[in-house]
């Protein structure tokens, strides 16, 4: 039977790509994370230093700051995106020309390059000639001349805003798919019995969407942990280090200061955080599935 091995032959090309482009670099940076390697001083890796790079990280204030910044960013952007996406999907699942139009244009923010989103929000929030900065100032006099991106909290707020603007559409599509797959009968029966919209949403729809919401929350968490482009084009990590996320900090250590050993160790800390979340995610999903079938 020559077909016996076919399943494996089909997998080989893709598997080779994954092996060469992710598994190998991962192993390489794992080894590098136990070395001292200052690229400005030496072309080749210097000696092994054990877990020194990791120990150094635990005491370094800039690393701890980036962890905190990342935490704030992830929490706010995940919560906002998931709630907004759910609300949008509930609104957009109805039929109607305006609903369809909104659904169609919703793909645009998702297709827009995040680097460009950062650039255009930077332009719109420019205190002198930014259209949003000026528009807000005209409507609310108290907001006139607010130096949006020069204020640590506001800069973080705008960073979150760009991310929510970029990801809410994608998550809305996921919600719409989830909503389409749950049976409408219970909802219709409740409506005939005179249940209010809010009751139907919170009592009937949301409980059935638990699985989808969970998937969304975890995917969004992963995307938020990886977010990098807008930090470069919107805030540059500033003002000060107030929007310096872990991914951006790793980039600085690796490609501004060329400390490869330390950057690799930091990169592995970020990987570990993500792995932890994804394992937790798989376990949650599995128990969810058990509950659903039981």
């Amino acid at each position, binding site marked *: 039977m020559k077909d016996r091995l076919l399943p494996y032959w089909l997998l080989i*090309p893709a598997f080779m790509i994954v092996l060469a482009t992710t598994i190998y670099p991962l192993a390489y940076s794992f080894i590098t994370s136990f070395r001292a390697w200052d690229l400005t001083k030496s072309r080749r890796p210097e000696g092994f230093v054990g877990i020194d790079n990791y120990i150094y990280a635990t005491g370094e204030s800039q690393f701890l700051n980036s962890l905190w910044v990342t935490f704030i960013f992830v929490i706010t952007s995940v919560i906002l995106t998931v709630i907004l996406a759910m609300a*949008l999907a509930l609104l957009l699942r109805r039929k109607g020309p305006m609903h369809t139009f909104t659904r*169609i244009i919703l793909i645009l923010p998702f297709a827009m390059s995040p*680097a460009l989103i950062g650039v255009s929000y930077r332009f719109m929030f420019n205190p002198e000639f930014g259209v949003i900065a000026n528009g807000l100032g005209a409507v609310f006099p108290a907001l006139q001349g607010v130096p949006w991106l020069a204020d640590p909290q506001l800069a973080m707020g705008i960073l979150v805003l760009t991310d929510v603007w970029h990801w809410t559409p994608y998550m809305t599509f996921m919600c719409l798919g989830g909503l389409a797959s749950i049976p409408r009968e219970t909802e219709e029966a409740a409506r005939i019995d005179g249940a209010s919209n809010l009751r139907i949403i919170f009592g009937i729809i949301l409980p059935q969407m638990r699985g*989808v919401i969970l998937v969304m929350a975890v995917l969004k968490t992963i995307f938020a942990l990886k977010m990098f482009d807008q930090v470069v084009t919107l805030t540059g990590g500033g003002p000060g280090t107030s929007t310096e996320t872990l991914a951006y900090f790793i980039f600085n250590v690796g490609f501004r200061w060329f400390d490869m050993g330390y950057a690799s160790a930091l990169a592995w800390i970020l*990987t570990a955080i993500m792995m932890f979340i994804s394992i937790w995610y798989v376990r949650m999903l599995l128990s969810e599935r058990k509950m659903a079938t039981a």
Partner: protein
Amino acid sequence: MKRTLSYVGERALLVLISIVVLFPIAWMFLTAFKQPRDAYSLSLNFEPTLQNFVTVFSAPWNLGSMVMNSVVVATVTVAIAVPCAALAAYSFSRFRVKGRKFLFFLILSTQFIPAVVIVLPFFLMFRQLDMLDTRLALIIVNLAIVTPFVIWMIKGFIDAIPTDSEEAAMIDGASRLRVIKDIVLPMAAPGIMTSSIFCFILTWNEFLFALILSRRDAVTLPVGLVSFRTERGDLWELMSAAGVMITVPIFIMALFIQKHFTRGMTAGAVK
């Protein structure tokens, strides 16, 4: 009365959402056609000009070469990733072989690895091989991000195709490869097309790899944006013109797949 109120409220909400979605994009498009002095004013009453596009395509910006780099990198990445991923997706979808779950999980879990972890070793490797600032280097790293994603997406589409006609053909003596070529591929074509476009968008917009691995020759459009930040300040009208060049092809593609996109997304994520 209550009904009309909620009717009006719902429409108003939809208009508001559309404004939030479209405004930043519209503003960028407007700015791209403004003369420099108008770009720094909020006026909508300006004389449109194509000068910004002329400027970005001439020295020293040379956006043309960046467009070329972006087109080549994204096209070649798609051309390599999609066929490989389609075969793997078919295998994952149709065969219950040993170790299948583990392999699928392994491939999916690479999605959870931050790009910055992958780019560090690649930077060192390409430096050693003298491949920094080449399109080939960018294609190789982009494959890392795109391939697992496309496998996952295409698998969702193939899962949705019933197996009956495949089985019938096999009973009639057709080989598995023939079945793939003559039955599965045509039926999966819309899904594969959607995945290809999606993969193109991801690569086209990719920023981190290009920022680190290119200097002058292989710079792609998103990284090119950063070069309009000069000592004289940010040149917004030129950035906007470049932004229009980045978004227009992608928007056309995105609108083209919008319908399938929703389906593909949820099939993969919920199952």
